[in-house]
């Protein structure tokens, strides 16, 4: 039953990503060319509502269903890993025109070439885990 709700959330998310065109290579390219407000509007409006909602959750100490704390753990402090890792991610995001969520959506939409991107992303994650102790964080 719990898994059915996660599946439903995923389907909902997949439809949003596809229908909003956030999963389209063209929209990512257009965003980095500042050619349209579309992607900025999606991220910006999600954020405005997200910030307000999270502040309300914190102020009124709203609990998750079942009485547990909401999962709002802040990330560890640091600069290097977020900046360098972020830049590498951004290079890939613009080149492949896809980030981790939309990749799966595109696989479902039948773009089989995206499976190469997904496999390489898994490989990239593996290589990171392999060499992470040698990288500055």
């Amino acid at each position, binding site marked *: 039953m719990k898994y059915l709700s996660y599946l439903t959330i995923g389907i909902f998310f997949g439809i949003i990503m596809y229908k909003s*065109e956030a999963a389209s290579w063209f929209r990512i*390219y257009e965003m980095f060319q500042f050619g349209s407000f579309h992607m900025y509007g999606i991220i910006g409006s999600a954020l405005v509502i997200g910030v307000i909602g999270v502040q309300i959750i914190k102020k009124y100490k709203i609990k998750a269903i079942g009485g547990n704390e909401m999962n709002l753990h802040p990330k560890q402090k640091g600069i290097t890993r977020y900046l360098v890792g972020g830049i590498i991610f*951004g290079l890939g995001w613009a080149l492949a025109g896809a980030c981790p969520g939309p990749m799966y*959506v595109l696989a479902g939409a039948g773009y089989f070439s995206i499976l190469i991107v997904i496999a*390489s992303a898994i490989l*990239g994650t*593996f290589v990171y885990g392999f060499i992470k102790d040698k990288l500055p964080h």
Partner: protein
Amino acid sequence: MNLLYDPWPWYVAGPLIALTMFVLLSVGKQFGMSSNLRTMCSIGGAGKYSDFFKFDWRAQRWNLVVVVGAVIGGFIASQLMSDNTVKINPEIAQQLSTDYGIESAGEAYLPPELFATENLSDPFVLAILILGGFMVGFGARYAGGCTSGHAISGLSNLQLPSLIAVIGFFIGGLVMIHLLFPLIFS
């Protein structure tokens, strides 16, 4: 306007993404898609090579179910709810065509020049897909999250690390599109 069939504008999509995040928070989970890549490594036995992959991946199964849902969502949306074309800014479409020979803006959802299955035999196309994917996977884990984890979840929680990561995402993206694309696609 046909709400079910036409592309959704940003002011519909953005709030729905926020809703997705809140639904996950309300069931005690966190919205983020790139951690699944690490989970898949662990399932594949990567724990033999690095302690980074030695964790209880079974606790992350819920997130893999979200991935399966996203695949199904992509199938439903592309088959039943879309004509699978994306109309971007005509000037950008024209520029893509003139500079890089990508002619399909407005006619396709992804450029077939890069994503048509028959072009996979082209080493140039294959290299772009492999390199792009690799950097997404490597960078997301190095930065501790991707667009959903940092740009939506992290920034909603006003986390400084997420702001730094998102600034990095845009530095990388802008460098790729404005400095590297002219070299790669020339």
